């Protein structure tokens, strides 16, 4: 039974309209050499995502009213690309997974738009900023709601464009503009994989089933895929996910992306866009689950990236860089979550959906506390007059009480302290990794990495927190002028802090219900969308209740250790600079030299090759040959001439003459 809803299209439509409206206003006023009226722009800018959010809420209830097995609303707007068996429509799919995503994107998006009104109020590019930000909302919603891989790809590249425009928002700074380039190009490397994944699936299905790239159609035919084909397709798509979600080695763009305005970092480079890769793996879970190895690759890349980025974050001194690497690291956790989900589905059919949901839950909770962290850092940066170096801050607690309190909640949440949101979602992933060890012992390694990384996370996050807010001010001038942000900025902070406190309870594990808390709401909601072709109860090995509590104790314990270290090193006696600087610190500070390696291994050789092609092959090779052919010819016929207009004529004559000779030959030859 297929249900349709004409409302779905409105969700991306509103931000598109407001983006276009603000864009036109911007250009119009740029022509008159002034800024568009800020009040009007603000109102329109917030109205777009807010309207989308309201429609999303209506859609959520529409969806919930349907029986669980039928929870999918579709809307086919118009035929997009129809070529033979390739039938792509501009069509939307709203199922529990995309419903959760649009609520998250529009809800948090609205708050961040609101915050931006305050944050960007003194910027000359005020209206330009909002036209980009609304365009981003549109693209992100297309990405989430698209009912086929290519339509998802439209949003996928669309958010890449907006990311590019917003990273390079202050384009007069060439370094910032180039950070935008870097983001776009690194994403393009991922998109290369995404495209090939689509081609592969399409032709595979064309040869072995019905050619389609619709999610529903592909899922129906999941049985057609051989494990080998599923592995190839899944890994190609995963390359795309790695680009968008900044997994090693395509993570290099995300730290540079912090060049954009801070609310952009919150919305695009933390809460929503960068989780698109995780969303894609969950969406294509049925395919990944057919492959015995794809899930393990996803989880392993995630685990490696989580640890790798956490190490880098330890040594950074730019508040946004710390947060950026923490985002990379948390994205790694999400990939562990969804990777294990599809892996479990592969070994125990029907067991994967709940595990996949745990990965998506981390996407959901992370959106709250990471958006909060970035907005909080924005508030700090705003207060400190664009200073981002935590070594120049210190003692800001008294100056920025709301920012301090809300950021404190978020820092505790990301460190995994109960009962905040991050605790529940990270704990679920770690527990799943522990269970995975039961099936393949080496997977305990992923658990160990996850556990260790959560200690590191607690350490570097509280390092940032203490250095910013506690101890004595290290730059008196900055401290003296610091002031709390206006209400339009603190309201979103408070709203997100509230979210950070409560959303964790949406997915309480059974062991923590204490007899009255509703359990697994989130996973139950997502189940119809995430189940990968096998209904029925999961029969995963599950640890005993006491083991469960031990696991939790371990995670909380290591987080407390991390916090303790940070406290001892950075809060107790405020150091003026990093207490010890060693070679190791240097390597972390330089981010393991990945950028330098890419420069040396990929970019320099490519440019060398290009210069060689240009000079030796094109100019001195092919072109030389062509330019000198007439010379050689002229030399032969003793009519030495340099290239002149006369040549055309003489050549034409010669050719016509020759032609007639051959013509005569044809005639005599063929007329026989």
């Amino acid at each position, binding site marked *: 039974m297929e249900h349709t809803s004409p409302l779905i299209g409105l969700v991306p439509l509103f931000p598109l309209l407001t983006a276009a409206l603000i864009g036109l206003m911007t250009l119009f006023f740029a022509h008159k050499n002034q800024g568009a009226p800020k009040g009007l722009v603000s109102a329109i800018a917030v109205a777009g995502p807010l309207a989308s959010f309201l429609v999303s809420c209506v859609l959520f209830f529409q969806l919930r009213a349907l029986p669980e097995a039928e929870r999918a609303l579709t809307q086919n707007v118009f035929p997009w690309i129809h070529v033979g068996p390739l039938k792509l429509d501009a069509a939307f799919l709203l199922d529990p997974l995309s419903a959760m995503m649009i609520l998250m994107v529009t809800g948090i998006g609205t708050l961040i738009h609101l915050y931006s009104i305050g944050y960007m109020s003194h910027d000359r590019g005020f209206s330009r900023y909002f036209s980009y930000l609304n365009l981003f909302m549109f693209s992100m919603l297309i990405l989430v709601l698209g009912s086929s891989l290519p339509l998802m790809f439209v949003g996928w590249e669309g958010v890449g464009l907006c990311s590019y425009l917003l990273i390079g928002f202050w384009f007069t700074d060439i370094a910032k503009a180039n950070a935008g380039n870097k983001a776009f190009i690194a994403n393009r490397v991922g998109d290369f994989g995404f495209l090939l994944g689509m*081609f592969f699936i399409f032709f595979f299905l064309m040869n072995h089933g019905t050619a389609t790239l619709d999610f529903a159609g592909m899922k129906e035919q999941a049985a057609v895929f051989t494990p080998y084909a599923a592995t190839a397709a899944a890994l190609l798509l995963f390359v795309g996910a790695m680009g968008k979600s900044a997994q090693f080695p395509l993570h290099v763009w995300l730290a540079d992306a912090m060049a954009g305005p801070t609310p952009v970092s919150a919305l695009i480079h933390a809460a929503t866009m960068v989780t698109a890769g995780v969303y894609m793996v969950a969406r294509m879970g049925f395919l990944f689950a057919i492959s015995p190895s794809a899930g393990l690759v996803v989880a392993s890349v995630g685990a490696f990236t989580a640890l790798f980025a956490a190490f880098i974050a330890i040594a950074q001194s730019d508040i946004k860089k710390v947060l950026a690497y923490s985002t990379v690291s948390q994205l790694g956790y999400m990939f562990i979550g969804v990777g294990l989900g599809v892996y479990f589905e592969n070994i125990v059919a029907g067991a994967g959906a709940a595990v996949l949901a745990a990965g998506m839950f981390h996407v959901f909770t992370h959106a709250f506390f990471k958006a909060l962290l970035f907005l909080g850092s924005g508030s700090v940066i705003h207060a400190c007059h664009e200073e981002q170096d935590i070594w120049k801050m210190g003692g800001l607690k008294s100056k920025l009480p709301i920012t301090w309190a809300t950021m404190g909640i978020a820092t505790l949440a990301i460190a995994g302290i109960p009962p905040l949101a991050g605790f529940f979602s990270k704990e679920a992933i770690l527990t799943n990794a522990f269970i995975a060890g039961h099936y393949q012992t080496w997977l305990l390694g992923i658990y160990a990495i996850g556990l260790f990384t959560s200690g590191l996370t607690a350490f570097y996050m509280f390092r940032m927190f203490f250095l910013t807010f506690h101890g004595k001010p290290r730059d008196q001038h900055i401290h003296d002028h610091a002031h709390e942000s206006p209400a339009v900025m603190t309201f979103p902070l408070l709203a997100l802090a509230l979210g950070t406190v409560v959303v964790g309870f949406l997915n309480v594990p059974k062991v923590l219900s204490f007899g009255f808390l509703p359990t697994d709401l989130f996973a139950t909601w997502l189940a119809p969308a995430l189940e990968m072709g096998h209904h029925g109860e999961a029969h995963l090995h599950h640890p005993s209740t006491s083991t469960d509590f031990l696991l939790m104790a371990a995670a909380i314990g290591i987080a407390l250790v991390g916090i303790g270290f940070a406290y001892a090193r950075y809060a107790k006696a405020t150091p003026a600079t990093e207490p010890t600087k060693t070679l190791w610190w240097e390597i972390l500070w330089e981010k393991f030299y990945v950028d330098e390696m890419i420069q040396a291994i990929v970019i320099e050789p490519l440019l060398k090759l290009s210069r060689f092609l240009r000079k030796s092959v094109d100019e001195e090779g092919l072109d030389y040959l062509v330019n000198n052919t007439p010379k050689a010819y002229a030399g032969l016929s003793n009519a030495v001439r340099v*290239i002149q207009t006369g040549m055309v004529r003489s050549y034409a004559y010669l050719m016509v003459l020759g032609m007639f000779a051959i013509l005569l030959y044809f005639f005599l030859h063929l007329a026989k």
Partner: protein
Amino acid sequence: MSHLLSILILLPVMASLGMLLIPADRKPVIKTWALGASLLNLALGLGLWFGFKPEAGFQFAEKADWLPSLGISYHIGVDGLSLLIAMLTLILTPVAILASWNRIQHKLRGYYACMLLLGSGMLGAVVARDLFLFYVFWEVMLLPMFFMIGVWGGEKRVFATTKFVVYTLVGSLLMFLAILYVYFKHQALNGTWTFDIPSLYALSYSPTEMWLLFGAFFLAFAIKTPVWPFHSWLPDAYTQAPTPATFMLSAVMAKIGAYGFLRFLIPMFPEATRTAAPFIMLLGMFGLLYGAWIALVQTDAKRLIAYSSLSHMSIIVMGIFALNQFGITGSVFYFMAHAMATGALFLLVMMLAERRGTREIAQFGGIAKAAPWLTVAFIFITMASVGLPGLNGFVGEFLMLMGAYGAANPIGVIATTGVIWSACYMLWLVSRIFFGEITRPENQGFKDLTLREAFIILPLAALIAWTGFYPQTVLSKVEPSVQAFLQQTGFAAAVEAKAAPADGESHTPAAPAAHADGH
């Protein structure tokens, strides 16, 4: 019988003759006359677009005996393969004229006459249904281009135009020999003299004959398109030509080379095509990388766009010789997409160069601050050029790469890396020209788009956005002709055999054909 096509071909000829009556010093009148004529032609041409019926094969056909004893006739008509190029000619001629407005300062009558005649020549070449007639138009369109580069071009214009003409002439004269050979061969086989194109399709040849003829036709079209390594006329001609001429050259004339593969080479020599296609795809793939990589290290903006054009035309060649509906439909669609994006880029570079008197990229920097509209236009077109989904470049690229992947996986995989390279050279170009602080005093007060310039870019941008958002406008007119082409050349079989089990409901043998025709 409608005479629309003939009118569209003849009107610019008449207009250019009429221009001789205008005194040479009445410059505004000359320009307005030319623009008016091209706009009138476009207005009439809309009838072609809206009157075109996707499923009806050749339309707007006209046939009259020309030299009946030799089997030469004036036979024209348009189908889905030629419709887009015909429309491009009509749409882009006024754009090119508008772009020439201030750029051309001397010998206006000659210049605008050339521009109008160029349109007639190109339109004639794509609608010709008679091989002899085609050849006449094919050479006719070379002449105005020869003069435009040679008289109104840059410093090295004489060298460039000579190289361009001699190079293309070598190819086309060889093709002319091949045409005559085919003509005689048909007479020898069937006893009638005819240049009627469909009659000359797929004659039986000895292997030697086949390969020599295939080679001659291939060379002519490969030079025009151009296919690597026959491209070395391109950087010189593209850079030395006055930019409106470069615009027409890259936007339309290059497409006629690619169109030649579809209309003549493949249907005339399907057997040779089958063998040669993988190798030609390889040339395309190589040209794609080669053009993109050289574009990476260009210091001259116009030359950079010229190499990017080579790179994009190479994808078209690859898509065509994938010989499946995705590749070919994508290529035909991309005729238009590439014309708009690359054409607009050439024009935007011209606008930059006119303000500074140089095309050296290093001479710019920080322009965005001074010229926001120009920047927005440039970035928009850049995004179209790098194939951002939602704009029309993506639709073509997606289909062509998909077609290439379907025909030969490794080629498709390597070619798909093109999405990375194009982003590299275009974004680096954008940031070097537009971003950063203004460092050179000459760039202070850089003038933004004028109204006239906005009117040059706006129609292109609107079409790019519309045909990217709703590509079915175009695809629905192209696709049936591509299906017919594949059926008639015998390349549909392979595609259908694969598509057949696709139809879940019907298992009858007739299903594939029905499936392919309509949906």
